[in-house]
C-alpha cells in the first residue's frame, strides 16, 4: 500500500511541477497587469512581485479609460457566438447526410472533406481575398463566417460521432412516419448534444482567437475583433502596454468560463467522437 502512496506522490509532484511551468506565463502577465506599462518595456516581463510599484491603475483604465477595448470585446463575442452556432448547425447537418445515407458521389465528397482538412487555409488567402472583394463582402463579418461554415474538421468529428448512433433509430423514425428532415431534427440532433459541447469549445476557441483572415478582411477599426485590436496596440508610438497587458489578461476570461462550464461534456464528447480505427 505504501508503494501506491509513493507513486501518488511522485505523480503529483511531477504534474504539479509541469503545471507550475505552464502557469508561469499567466502569473507573469497577472503581475504585470498591476504594474505600469512602462515598467514592462523597461525591465521586461518578469516575476518580481514588488508591491511598491503595483496598483490597480490598469484595471481602472480598462473599465473607465477612453479606448475601444470593449468594442473589440463585444465584436469578438458576437462573432464567436454567431460563428459557432452556424458552423455547428451546418456541419452537423452535413455530417448527418454523410452518415445516414448511401448516395452517389458520397465517397468522393467525403474524400474532399478529408482533403481540405489537410490543405492549409493560408494558401487561399490571396484568392479568397480577391473573391471577397469581388462579391462585395469586404469589411464584413460574413466574409469571416462563410468560408468556415461547413468546417471539415467539425464535419469529420460529427460523422465519427454519428457512427456510434444506432441506425435503428432512423429506421424507427421512418416507421413512425417522420420525414427525412424530421428524423434529423427530432431524433438525431438531441442525441448529438455531447458532441456539440466538444465542438462548441473547439470552434469557439478558434473563432475567439482567429486572427489572420479577419485581420485581412476587416478594415474598419469599429469592427475589429479582440486579437486584431490588441495587435494594434503593439506599436512603439502609442504607449499602449498598460491596456495591452491588462486587456490580454482579461481576454482569456470568457473562453475560460466556457471551458469550465462545458469541461465535463467536452471530454465525454471528444471521447464519443474520437477517431476509431
Amino acid at each position, binding site marked *: 500500500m505504501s508503494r501506491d502512496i509513493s507513486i501518488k506522490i511522485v505523480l503529483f509532484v511531477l504534474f504539479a511541477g509541469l503545471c507550475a511551468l505552464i502557469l508561469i506565463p499567466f502569473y507573469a502577465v497577472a503581475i504585470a497587469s498591476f504594474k505600469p506599462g*512602462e515598467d514592462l*518595456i*523597461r*525591465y521586461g516581463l518578469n516575476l518580481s512581485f514588488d508591491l511598491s510599484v503595483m496598483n490597480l491603475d490598469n484595471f481602472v483604465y480598462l473599465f473607465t479609460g*477612453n*479606448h*475601444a477595448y470593449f*468594442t*473589440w470585446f463585444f465584436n469578438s463575442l*458576437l462573432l464567436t457566438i*454567431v460563428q459557432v*452556432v*452556424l458552423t455547428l*448547425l451546418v456541419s452537423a447537418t452535413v455530417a448527418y447526410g454523410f452518415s445516414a445515407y448511401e448516395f452517389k458521389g458520397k465517397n468522393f465528397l467525403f474524400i474532399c472533406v478529408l482533403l481540405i482538412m489537410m490543405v492549409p487555409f493560408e494558401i487561399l488567402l490571396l484568392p479568397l*481575398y*480577391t473573391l471577397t*472583394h469581388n462579391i462585395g*463582402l*469586404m*469589411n*464584413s*463579418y*460574413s*466574409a469571416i*463566417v462563410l468560408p468556415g461554415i461547413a468546417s471539415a474538421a467539425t464535419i469529420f468529428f460529427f460523422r465519427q460521432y454519428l457512427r456510434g448512433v444506432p441506425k435503428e433509430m432512423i429506421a424507427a423514425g421512418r416507421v413512425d412516419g417522420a420525414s427525412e*428532415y*424530421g428524423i434529423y*431534427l*427530432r431524433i438525431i440532433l438531441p442525441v448529438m448534444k455531447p458532441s456539440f459541447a466538444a465542438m462548441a469549445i473547439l470552434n469557439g476557441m478558434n473563432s475567439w482567437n482567429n486572427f489572420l483572415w479577419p*485581420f*485581412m478582411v476587416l*478594415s*474598419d*477599426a*469599429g*469592427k*475589429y475583433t479582440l486579437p486584431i*485590436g490588441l*495587435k*494594434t*496596440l*503593439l*506599436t*512603439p*508610438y*502609442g*504607449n499602449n*502596454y498598460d491596456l495591452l497587458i491588462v486587456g490580454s489578461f482579461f481576454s482569456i476570461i470568457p473562453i475560460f468560463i466556457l471551458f469550465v462550464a462545458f469541461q465535463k461534456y467536452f471530454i465525454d464528447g471528444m471521447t464519443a467522437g474520437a477517431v476509431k480505427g
Partner: protein
Amino acid sequence: MKQRWFIVFVVMSMTLMLFGCGQSPKSAGGETSVLDAGAGEGATELSYWTFVELHGQHFEKMLGKWNEANQDRQIKLNVTVMPYDDMHNKLSIAVQTGVGAPDIADIELGKFPDFLAGTPQLEPLNDVIDPYRDTIVKSRVDLYSKEGQNYGIPTHVGASVAFYNTELLEQAGVDYKTIVTWEDFKQAGIRVYEETGKYMGTADTSATWQTSMLLAQQGSDFTDESGKPVVNSEPMIKGLTILKDLQDHNVIATIAGGQPDTEEAYGEFNSGNYAAAFMPLWQMSRYTNYMKDLSGKIAIAPIPVIEKGMPRSVGGGGTGTVVTKTAKDVQLAKDFLAFAKLSLDANQEIWNTLGFDPVNMDVWNMQDVTHNPDNQFVQYFQNNPFDVLNEIKDEIQLIKSTSATPTINNVLCTITLNEIFEDGRDIKEALDAAQAQIEQELK
C-alpha cells in the same frame, strides 16, 4: 413541424444579423477616434490612417482652426492608428483594390515608392502645394513625387542630429561639445565605457539612420544616379567599417529592438544604458513621450563626421500624407491637408505639438516660436534644437527614395546589418551578399 420552423427561423435570423452587422457603416472606437473639433451638423466626415498616434493630435489642433475658419466646409476627422507594417499593408491593398481606403493617410518615406508603382492610386496634390511651394524645402516634396506630380505632403525635414545624455558623459568626464569627428567620438566612447561601463551609442541593426548619415557625409547614396541599388559601394564599406570599429572598441553596441526608435530601446535609453543616439530630429518627441526620466539631461548637437568639413546632417525618415483616389471629397481633403501641414500656422504647430523641424524653414528663425519657454520640447532639452538646426541648416543632405528603396531597406535591416553587428560577418562579404539579394528580389 414547429420545431423545424423554429430552427429555420433561428438560422435565418442569425444570417440576417450577420449580414446586417457586416454592412452597417457604424464605426466606433477601435484605435479609431472621431475628432469633431467644433464641427457642426453638416460637417463632412473624413477618415485618416496613421501609424503615429501623435500625428492625430496635430490634426486635431489644425482641425479646430479649419472648422472655425471654414464654417461652410467643416470636417470631422476619423483617425485610425495602426502599427507601421499593418497600416502600410492594409493601405496598399485598399488603394489598389479601391475598397476600404481612408480619405487621407500617412505613408512613411521608406514605403512610399511602393505606392508610386505603376499608376499611383493617389491624388496629385500640386495645385494645393503650389501656393506654399516657395516657402518649403523643395527636396522634401520631391521625395513624394513621380513624374512631376506631387502625391504626398511632407511633415518635416528630419535633419539628423546627435542626442547626448550629458549626465552620463559628465560621469566619464566627457564634453560632448568637443566631439567633431568619429575619431573624437571613439575616444570619448572608450572613456565612457571605461568609466561607467555603459555604451556611448548604438550599433543599429534594424534601421539605416546611421548608415545614411555616413553615406551622406561622403556624398554618396544607397542607389546610383539612375536609381539602381549599390549597397556594396566603397563609401558604404567605409561607413560600416567605421561603425564596426566603434563596436569593436565597446563604444557602440547593439540594442534591444535594434535601433533607438523602438519601445525596447526607449527603455534602455531611459535607464541610462546608452549615452548617445544619432537620429533625425523627430526623435525628440520620443524622448518627451517615452523617456521621461531623461528630462533635462539630453543635449542636442551635430553628428560627428569622418573628416572635419563634411556635411553634418541628412534628412531622415519622413511621412508623406496623401489623399486617396477614392476619397469622399477629394478637393476638401486636399485643401484641408494643405492647410493642416503647409500653412505657416501648421508649420508652427508641427513644431509645437510634434517637435518636428518644419519644412517651412522661416519658422526656424522665429524666436518666439522656437524658443517659447512653455514648449515642452524647449523645456525637456538642455539646449535649443533650433540653435543646432540653424548651424547645420545648409549641410542637410538627402538620401534618394527610389523604387528600389523598400527592398534595399528590407534586406539591410533584416539581414545585412544583423550579420555585421550581431554575427561579425565580414563587411564586404555581407554587403556583396546584400547587393546580390537585392538584385535578385528586384528582378
